């Protein structure tokens, strides 16, 4: 009896770990970073699993929204010369001896 319970528990753990690994691969596929055999296996799984396919489609929509965000191409709001001057001023200040006598 106890052995049967243990076996059922172990099976649930195994299925849970497999599910987590699949979900991680689905996320990485949506992020465009899954390669090789893992990518092929995950694509095949998506064909057979509507839940994972729906999750993948939602994640892809999020990724696409980020990849089309105009912020990616934003130009700095000040000319380079202005920024260089700010940095040089700060560098100058950081090199000045501390606690200069008045």
């Amino acid at each position, binding site marked *: 009896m106890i052995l049967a319970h243990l076996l059922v528990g172990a099976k649930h753990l195994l299925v849970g770990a497999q599910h987590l690994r699949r*979900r*991680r691969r689905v*996320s*990485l596929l*949506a*992020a465009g*970073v899954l390669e090789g055999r893992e990518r092929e296996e995950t694509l095949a799984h998506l064909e057979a699993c509507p839940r994972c396919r729906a*999750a993948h489609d*939602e*994640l892809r*929509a*999020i*990724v*696409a*929204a*980020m*990849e*089309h*965000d*105009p*912020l*990616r*191409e*934003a*130009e*700095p*709001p*000040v000319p*380079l010369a202005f*920024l*260089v001057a*700010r*940095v*040089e001023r*700060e*560098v100058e200040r*950081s090199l000045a001896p501390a606690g200069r006598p008045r």
Partner: protein
Amino acid sequence: MEPSRGGAGDRELMARLAAGDREALAPLMERHYRRLYRIALSYLRQPDDALDVVQEAFVKAFQSASRWDGSAEAGPWLARITVNLAIDRWRRNRRRAQTFTPLAENDHAASLADLGPSPDHRVQGREAGERVAAALAGLPERQRAVVVLRHYQDMSLEEIAGALEMSLGTVKSSLHRALGRMRVALAGGRP
């Protein structure tokens, strides 16, 4: 990440900075300031804050140039400084409660559906971007940094691992968890 525009040029400029040559700052900034600004802006989403972070990053680069590993690329090293400064700035802003306004309750249910195609592409794109930005703002700091470097800077997992000083496995887990959290946030808490 942007293609390298000549590692040797960067190395030479970094060597000059390490020797205390302030004249090397301007050409180094010219090569990298746009990319660093976009990293900071994607993380903070505030142009003034992003500009301050870029300024701090170059000051820090000058101060730390003597400790720079001469065999390393300057681009990822500068990206690392910038991301860490952006995270610090984000923490300070959060403490001052100047962060994002959360999504309105009734915005949640339709959020994921609204990310799909729409006839008015420009408006749809902007609104989708704002919803996704709000979900991004709700992520833990490091997960947020991983998402920004991957999806706003197109960095590879290896480059992200280098920039954030994380293992490759941690970068993968962080990306998976972050995208999962964003999905839940945009679906109004539905897993």
